[in-house]
C-alpha cells in the first residue's frame, strides 16, 4: 500500500513555488493544477487506495509521530474531514480561475498556503496539529488584506490578526488545560458544563466561536473581508469560518448555548445588512447570518442538526464564493461595490447578474438550488426538537436572506429601475454585454452549476454526510411554504424599496465597543500618560543634577541645606520606586 500524501502540504508548499515560475502561461496552468492535484489525492484516499476509511466516528490514521511524552496524529481521515476537504479543493479550483488575472504572484502564494493550512486543520487528528494549522490560517489572510494596498485594508489586516491571535490564545489555553486535566491530545468530543473545572473548555469554545464569527464576536469578518483584494476576499469567505464549524461539530456538539447564539446570530446580522451600502460588506453579513444556521445546528446536537450544519457548510462555501464573485465583478469592472454609486449595470453585465442570481437563490434556499437541501435540514431539526423560538428565528433569517442577497444587492448593483449606470461608472464600460473578464465568468459558471446540481440531485451530498440521512427535502409542504414566503417577501421589498436603497455611510458594529475604548486608551497613552512620564523624568533629572552638583562641589558640601537634602531624599525615593516597579 502506498504512503498517504497530504493534499494540504502539496497545495501549500506548491504555492510557494508560484512566484519563481518564469512564463506566465505555465504559472497560470500550475496555479490551476495545485487544487486539482489535491482533488486527485482526495479521490484516491476515499477510494481506499491508502487504506479503508471506516464509518464516521471511527477514522483512518495513516501515521503518528512521537512528541515529548505524547503521540501526535497529524492526520486523521473520516467522512466529515473528507467532506470538508472535497469542498475546500473544489472551491479553491474555482477561486483560482477567478484569480487568474491577478498580477501579484505572492497573493497566489498566500492564498494557497491558506487553503493548504485549512486542509491541514480538517485532517488534524490531535489538538496541537490543529492549533498549528489554525495559526497559519490566521496569518495567510493577513497578506491577502495587505496586498490590497489601501490604508483601510492595512488597518483591517492588523485588526484581523489581533482578533485571530486572541482566539488562538484562547484555544491554546483551552488545549493546555485539557491536556493537563486528561493527559490526552485527541481532537474529539470535549466535556461541557458551567463549573470552574470547565474553564479550559469555555476558553476553547470562545476561540472557536470567535473564529466562526458568532455574534457578538462577528465584527472582524465584515471589517476585513470587505477590505481584501477582490479575489483574495473570495478565499477568505470559505476557509476560516467553516473550519471553525468543523471544529465545533467535532468538539462541542449539543451545547445549548451554541444553538441560541447561532439563531440570534442568524437574525442579528440581517439588521445590519439592511443598512449596509457596500456590496461586499452586505455579503459578509450574510456569511455571518448563514454561519448562524450551522452553529445552531451544532448546538442542537441531533444527527439531523449536525448533518444540517455539515451540509450547509459545504453548500455555503459554494454559493457564498459565487455571491462574493458577483460583488467582486462590480468592484473590478465598475471600480466600486457601493450601492449609491451603482445601478443600471444589467445592460453591460447581464451574465454576471444571472450567475449572481443563482447564488442569491441558493443562499435564500429556493427549491432546486443547493441552499434549499441543506438549510431546510437545519430548520427541520429545530422543528423536530419542538423549539418554537429557534424555528421562528431561523425561518425569519431565511426571509431576511432573500430580501438582501436575492433582492437588495442585485437591485442596487444591476437594476435600481434604470437602464444606464451613473456616468462616472458608464465611462469605464465597453459598449458590450460582456464587460466582466471571461475567466471570472467561467469561475462563476462552475460554481453556479454546482449550486444547481446539488440542489437538483442532493443524494451526492447526503451520501457524504457523517450520519445517515433520513430527510426528504422536496415535500409539497416545504416547497410550497418557502416559495410562498419568498413571493411575499418580494412584495414587502417592493413596497419599501426606497428604504433599502444605498446611502453613503458606515454602519457601526459590535467592534465599536472595543475600538472606542481602545482609541481612548491610545489617546490616554499618547497624551496624559506621556506628559506625566516626561514630567517625572524632568523632576528626577533635576533632583539628580542637584545631588551631583552638590557632591562634586566641596564648597557647597559644607553648606548642605535642608531643602537640598529634601531633594536628595525625593530623588532617592523616585529611583527606588522605579527600581521596585521594574522588578515586580
Amino acid at each position, binding site marked *: 500500500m502506498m504512503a498517504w500524501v497530504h493534499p494540504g502540504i502539496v497545495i501549500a508548499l506548491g504555492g510557494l513555488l508560484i512566484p519563481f515560475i518564469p512564463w506566465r502561461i505555465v504559472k497560470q496552468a500550475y496555479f490551476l493544477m495545485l487544487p486539482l492535484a489535491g482533488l486527485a489525492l482526495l479521490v484516491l484516499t476515499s477510494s481506499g487506495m491508502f487504506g479503508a476509511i471506516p464509518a464516521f466516528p471511527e477514522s483512518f490514521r495513516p501515521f503518528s509521530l512521537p512528541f515529548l511524552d505524547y503521540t501526535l496524529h497529524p492526520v486523521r481521515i473520516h467522512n466529515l474531514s473528507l467532506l470538508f476537504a472535497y469542498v475546500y479543493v473544489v472551491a479553491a479550483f474555482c477561486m483560482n480561475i477567478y484569480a487568474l488575472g491577478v498580477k501579484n504572484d505572492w497573493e497566489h502564494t498566500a492564498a494557497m498556503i491558506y487553503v493548504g493550512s485549512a486542509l491541514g486543520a480538517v485532517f488534524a487528528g490531535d489538538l496541537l496539529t490543529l492549533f498549528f494549522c489554525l495559526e497559519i490560517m490566521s496569518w495567510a489572510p493577513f497578506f491577502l488584506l495587505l496586498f490590497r494596498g489601501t*490604508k*483601510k485594508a492595512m*488597518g483591517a489586516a492588523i485588526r484581523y490578526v489581533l482578533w485571530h491571535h486572541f482566539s488562538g490564545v484562547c484555544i491554546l489555553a483551552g488545549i493546555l488545560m485539557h491536556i493537563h486535566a486528561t493527559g490526552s491530545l485527541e481532537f474529539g468530543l470535549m466535556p461541557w458544563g458551567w463549573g470552574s473545572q470547565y474553564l479550559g473548555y469555555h476558553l476553547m469554545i470562545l476561540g472557536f466561536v470567535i473564529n466562526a464569527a458568532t455574534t457578538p464576536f462577528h465584527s472582524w469578518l465584515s471589517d476585513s473581508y470587505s477590505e481584501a483584494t477582490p479575489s483574495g476576499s473570495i478565499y477568505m469567505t470559505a476557509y476560516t469560518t467553516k473550519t471553525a464549524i468543523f471544529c465545533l461539530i467535532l468538539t462541542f456538539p449539543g451545547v445549548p448555548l451554541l444553538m441560541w447564539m447561532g439563531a440570534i446570530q442568524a437574525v442579528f446580522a*440581517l*439588521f*445590519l445588512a*439592511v*443598512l449596509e451600502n457596500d456590496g461586499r460588506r452586505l455579503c459578509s453579513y450574510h456569511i455571518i447570518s448563514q454561519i448562524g444556521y450551522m452553529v445552531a445546528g451544532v448546538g442542537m446536537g441531533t444527527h439531523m442538526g449536525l448533518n444540517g450544519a455539515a451540509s450547509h457548510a459545504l453548500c455555503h462555501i459554494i454559493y457564498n464564493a459565487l455571491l462574493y464573485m458577483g460583488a467582486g465583478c462590480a468592484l473590478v469592472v465598475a471600480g466600486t461595490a457601493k450601492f449609491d454609486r451603482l445601478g443600471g449595470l*444589467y*445592460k*453591460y453585465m*447581464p451574465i454576471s447578474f444571472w450567475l449572481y442570481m443563482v447564488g442569491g437563490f441558493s443562499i435564500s434556499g429556493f427549491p432546486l438550488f443547493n441552499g434549499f437541501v441543506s438549510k431546510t435540514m437545519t430548520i427541520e431539526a429545530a*422543528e*423536530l426538537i*419542538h423549539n*418554537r423560538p429557534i*424555528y421562528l428565528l431561523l*425561518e*425569519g433569517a431565511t*426571509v*431576511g436572506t432573500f*430580501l438582501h442577497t436575492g433582492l437588495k444587492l442585485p437591485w442596487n448593483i*444591476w*437594476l435600481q429601475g434604470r*437602464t444606464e449606470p451613473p456616468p462616472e461608472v458608464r465611462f469605464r464600460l465597453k*459598449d*458590450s*454585454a*460582456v464587460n466582466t473578464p471571461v475567466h471570472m465568468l467561467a469561475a462563476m459558471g462552475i460554481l453556479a452549476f454546482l449550486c444547481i446540481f446539488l440542489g437538483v440531485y442532493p443524494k451526492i451530498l447526503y451520501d457524504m454526510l457523517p450520519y445517515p440521512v433520513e430527510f426528504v427535502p422536496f415535500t*409539497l*409542504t416545504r416547497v*410550497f*411554504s*418557502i*416559495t*410562498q*414566503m*419568498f*413571493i*411575499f*417577501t*418580494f*412584495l*414587502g*421589498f417592493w*413596497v*419599501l424599496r426606497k*428604504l*433599502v436603497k444605498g446611502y*453613503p*455611510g*458606515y*454602519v*457601526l458594529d459590535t467592534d465599536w465597543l472595543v*475600538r472606542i475604548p481602545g*482609541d481612548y486608551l*491610545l*489617546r490616554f497613552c*499618547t*497624551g496624559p500618560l506621556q506628559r506625566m512620564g516626561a514630567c517625572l523624568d524632568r523632576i528626577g533629572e533635576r533632583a539628580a543634577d542637584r545631588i551631583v552638583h552638590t557632591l562634586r562641589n566641596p564648597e557647597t558640601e559644607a553648606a548642605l541645606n535642608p531643602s537640598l537634602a529634601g531633594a536628595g531624599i525625593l530623588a532617592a525615593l523616585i529611583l527606588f520606586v522605579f527600581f521596585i516597579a521594574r522588578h515586580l
Partner: protein
Amino acid sequence: MHRLRVYPKRLFWRVYWAALAVSLILDGVWLYSHAVHYHFKFQYFPEFFALFGFIGCMLLILIAKGMGLFIVKEEDYYEKRSKQGNRVK
C-alpha cells in the same frame, strides 16, 4: 459584438402576479384537503407563510432603519476619530 438589452421587466411582473395569485389560492386548497403537514399549530393559520414573509420583511427593514438612526455614521468615521486624536497630541 453582443446586443445590449435591458432587463425583461414586463415578463417579470406578469409571472410575479400570476405566481402570487396561484400561491394564495393553493394555500387554501392544500390546507382544506390536508395535503400539507406542519410541525407547529401556528403554521396551519391560513396564509401563514405569506404573512410571515411580508410582515417579517417589512419589520426587518423598519426596525433596522430605526437602528440606523443611531449606528450609521459618516464613511470615514474611525479614520476621522483617529485623526482628531492625533491633533490632541
